[in-house]
């Protein structure tokens, strides 16, 4: 299928490459400005407390600018603006006198140096009233007073919180009682997934400069410059055309920059008070108290007939969301949707409850509900197959939601039809490459090292568009311009988090105009010079973001063809683009009349000199579908029965991304997604001390272990297969990769461990201690 493309599907050095290998790329933490102040945030040492009084006398004597809950705007908001207002709970204020976690913030100081700011912060005196803290969901839900939040807002409606329950969500289709009656086999199991820390390498940072005309310029770590602009404008009552949020590359996000990081609000408050540029860069310790993946705990009950059809499913989930809403309502919704879209069920009931605790606020991290749900559902498909005496892969192929069916891309309100489906192709090719059935039959032996093979499948949505508007906003604005030398500029607020989103946009434009990749540039962007882009999240970068750029490029091309038709004295419909590989030039020619021709540069230059104008176009585009980007993993592991250590020996990954725009970067997405998921399965979790509420790892990377280069297979042992699909609604047939790279890996690894030692773990992470304990019980 790629033979029809000149540039798409080929690998070129990525556009940011040179800046990034040479140290010249500027991330928010690298920025500094003249006469800039440094800020430090004042944080609670207690998990739950109220402030009785606060004394800045000593800090002020040092010359520090001080701010607290007493003099900052106190309106309620949600830091995440991806959902529509009527589906958005608001429980945040910039500062509060009510501290809800260790590390919660009640004020900030700014001074000429970071050292002086730190000294001033330490000199602030606070009188505390310590409250009972709730560090488990059970304790939190048993409480009737000293609640973590007493009242919050759903849009503008006041909501009284009871028993620390932040929100609930129920989704029902069909009649599960009848469904379970129809079942020959019913199984039920409880699954748990951990509080994984994003550990993006750059800690959350913001620089804010007040401008002479009353506005601000902001350089934040964010995945969403426009939502940051809208929130800052609203909270600080600044007209939106005076809030300029600059797109700066971030040192990793993984979901932690979908919401406006609190540091951006705090830095703005300080900068406005000081009327000086202020920078705050969190320490790693502060960053670990700032954000974490949603954990999950849910009971899943599934009924099936003897022939393998699923008659009913019931999922009851409790989510410990920590001390704030970063739109937990949306999270509960996507859990139901991702579950619903994995396998056809004749009836289903989902009950989700989000519970406040005095812990780090939870937010999106790669997969957003899909890894949590896929771990349980895929583990259960293995268990069901075993019970039915069926091949687990055959059971999946029989039941998966595929071509022509309805996919819930983002909970029950974002649904669209499936137009491309590479599931079976990927399973068959992957099984063959890794020799799945041969390995499955292999004797595990009784030695110290036991090998096992595992398989699981899943997907992520490509964006949150759908034929009908739902609870989630999704569109991108882009501008495409042809310069007078034939080069092209793309202007959009779309973010690239390292995966190659903007390279993909450039390559798609190169293909549309048949101009070489190096002639397409990505313009620097900020919120004042661009239209709204919701955010790079939900694996929407290529499908929705670059998809919007593609639609705009087609319009720009129409204008260019109009100029060319006038210049060549013909009709726009009779023109074609021809890329000349030897000269690197692109010509616009009259079909069948090759002598009637001009280069793009000549046409653009002629149009300018004739005062016809520039070939330029700008528009907001919403995708009206959200195709599933299917993935699957075959994983071979080796378990050391003496130490409990699990080694990843070999991985064969499958990705149904439609047309693969950047093959090498897409492979890199699969590698990275697998690496972070293996971390979640084998190592990563953050726990809070049950009495102090502090992180038990003391927010130190020394005690937050992640896999390193020594634990990952090399490329010979990590194969990535792409499906040969074409997504008809996508830009040149493309859909997403990003989060799908993560979602199906955890159950595949757990399934391989089960194959090796015969123990099915239902709680992640599976630590060496867990494995040793299980081995001890089984007397292996």
């Amino acid at each position, binding site marked *: 299928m790629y033979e029809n493309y000149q540039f798409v599907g080929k*690998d070129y*050095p*990525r556009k*940011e*490459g*040179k*800046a*990034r*290998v*040479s*140290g*010249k*790329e*500027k*991330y928010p*933490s*690298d920025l*500094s400005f003249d006469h800039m102040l440094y800020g430090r945030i004042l944080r609670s040492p207690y998990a739950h407390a109220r402030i009785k009084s606060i004394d800045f006398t000593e800090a002020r004597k040092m010359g520090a600018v001080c701010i607290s809950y007493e003099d900052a705007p106190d309106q309620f908001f949600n830091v995440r603006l991806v959902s529509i207002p009527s589906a958005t709970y608001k429980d945040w204020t910039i500062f509060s006198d009510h501290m809800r976690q260790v590390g919660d913030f009640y004020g900030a100081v700014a001074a000429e140096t970071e050292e002086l700011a730190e000294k001033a912060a330490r000199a602030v005196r606070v009188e505390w009233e310590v409250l009972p803290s709730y560090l488990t969901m059970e304790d939190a839900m048993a409480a009737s007073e000293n609640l973590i939040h007493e009242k919050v807002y759903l849009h503008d409606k006041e909501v009284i919180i009871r028993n620390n329950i932040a929100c609930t969500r129920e989704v029902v289709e069909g009649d599960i009682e009848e469904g379970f009656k129809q079942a020959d086999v019913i199984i039920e199991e409880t699954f748990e997934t951990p509080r994984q820390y*994003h*550990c*993006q*390498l*750059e*800690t959350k940072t913001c620089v804010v400069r007040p401008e002479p005309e009353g506005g601000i310029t902001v350089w934040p770590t964010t995945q969403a410059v426009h939502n940051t602009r809208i929130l800052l404008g609203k909270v600080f009552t600044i007209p939106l055309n005076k809030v300029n949020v600059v797109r700066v*590359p*971030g*040192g*990793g*996000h*993984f979901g932690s920059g979908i919401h406006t990081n609190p540091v951006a609000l705090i830095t703005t408050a300080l900068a406005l008070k000081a009327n000086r540029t202020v920078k705050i*860069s969190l*320490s*790693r310790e502060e960053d670990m108290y700032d954000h974490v993946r949603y954990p999950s705990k849910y009971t899943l009950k599934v009924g099936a007939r003897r022939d393998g059809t699923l008659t009913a499913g019931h999922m009851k989930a409790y989510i410990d969301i920590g001390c704030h809403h970063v739109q937990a309502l949306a999270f509960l919704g996507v859990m139901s949707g991702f579950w619903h879209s994995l396998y056809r069920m004749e009836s289903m009931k989902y009950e989700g409850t989000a519970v406040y605790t005095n812990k780090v606020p939870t937010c999106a991290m790669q997969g957003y509900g899909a890894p949590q749900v896929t771990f349980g559902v895929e583990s259960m498909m293995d268990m069901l197959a075993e019970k039915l005496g069926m091949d687990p892969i055959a059971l999946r192929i029989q039941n998966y939601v595929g071509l022509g069916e309805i996919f819930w891309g983002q909970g029950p309100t974002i649904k669209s039809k499936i137009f491309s489906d590479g599931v079976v192709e990927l399973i068959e090719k992957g099984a063959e490459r890794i020799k799945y059935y041969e390995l499955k039959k292999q004797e595990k032996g009784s030695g110290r090292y036991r090998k096992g093979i595992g398989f699981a499948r899943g997907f992520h949505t490509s964006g949150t568009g759908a034929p009908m508007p739902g609870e989630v906003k999704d569109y991108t604005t882009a501008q495409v311009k042809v310069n007078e030398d034939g080069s092209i500029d793309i202007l959009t607020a779309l973010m690239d*988090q*390292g*995966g190659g989103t903007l390279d993909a946009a450039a390559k798609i434009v190169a293909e549309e105009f048949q101009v070489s990749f190096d002639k397409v540039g990505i313009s620097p962007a900020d919120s004042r010079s661009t239209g709204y882009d919701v955010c790079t999240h939900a694996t929407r970068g290529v499908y929705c973001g670059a998809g919007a750029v593609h639609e705009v490029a087609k319009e720009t091309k129409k204008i260019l063809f109009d100029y060319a038709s006038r210049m060549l004295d013909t009709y726009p419909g009779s023109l074609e683009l021809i890329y000349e590989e030897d000269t690197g030039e692109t010509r616009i020619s009259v079909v069948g009349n090759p002598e009637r021709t001009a280069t793009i540069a000549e046409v653009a230059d002629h149009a300018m000199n004739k005062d016809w104008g520039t070939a330029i176009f700008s528009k907001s585009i919403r995708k009206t579908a959200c195709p599933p980007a299917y993935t699957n993993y075959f994983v071979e592991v080796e378990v050391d029965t003496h130490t409990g250590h699990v080694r990843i020996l070999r991985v064969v990954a499958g990705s149904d991304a439609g047309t693969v725009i950047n093959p*090498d*970067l897409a*492979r*890199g997405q699969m*590698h*990275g*997604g*697998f*690496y*972070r998921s293996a971390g979640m399965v084998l190592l990563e979790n953050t726990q809070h001390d049950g009495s102090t509420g502090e992180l038990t790892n003391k927010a*130190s*990377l*020394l005690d937050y272990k*992640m896999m*390193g*280069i*020594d634990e*990952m*297979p*090399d*490329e010979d042992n*990590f194969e990535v297969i792409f499906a040969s699909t074409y997504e008809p609604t996508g830009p040149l047939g493309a859909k997403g990769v990003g989060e799908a790279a993560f979602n199906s890996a955890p159950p595949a690894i757990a399934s391989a461990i089960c194959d090796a030692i015969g123990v099915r773990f239902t709680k992640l992470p599976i630590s060496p201690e867990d494995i040793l304990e299980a081995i001890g019980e089984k007397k292996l």
Partner: protein
Amino acid sequence: MNTISIELNVNGRDWQLSVAPNEMLLNVLRERLHYTGTKYGCGIGECSACTVLMDDTPVLSCQILAVQCVGKKIVTIEGLAEGQESHPMQDAFIEEGAVQCGFCTPAMVLTAAALVKEKPDPENQDIRDALRGNFCRCTGYVKILKAVQSGARKMRELS
């Protein structure tokens, strides 16, 4: 606080500086000399994002006092190419797709270049040993391993 006058050789150039006795090399490089390619990731020597070369050996600049560097040759990512357009290891990281967000990249490239200078034809295990302490949260290390092999080939061809 008292300050000490020192001379630091960074990227082939001598700098006269007045530093506090407890000032880390990382802070001096980033804040005084504006070599921001040297990154802060944890400040406790765990992530290696702050790696620079000291007399050709990778060291963690968040764990070294500026005053300890007197008389040594410090090279940051900005100085690795030694006046050329790029160092072969930098090219290899771009070509092999080993760069995603790029925040860990300077430290990875410096450590890899130092390894290959010492050991021109490294085994995969040598690369794993050298980069064991360097965190990358994006790539899963697969492409990094490949890029270092490719960079080593390029360096051998040039030598």
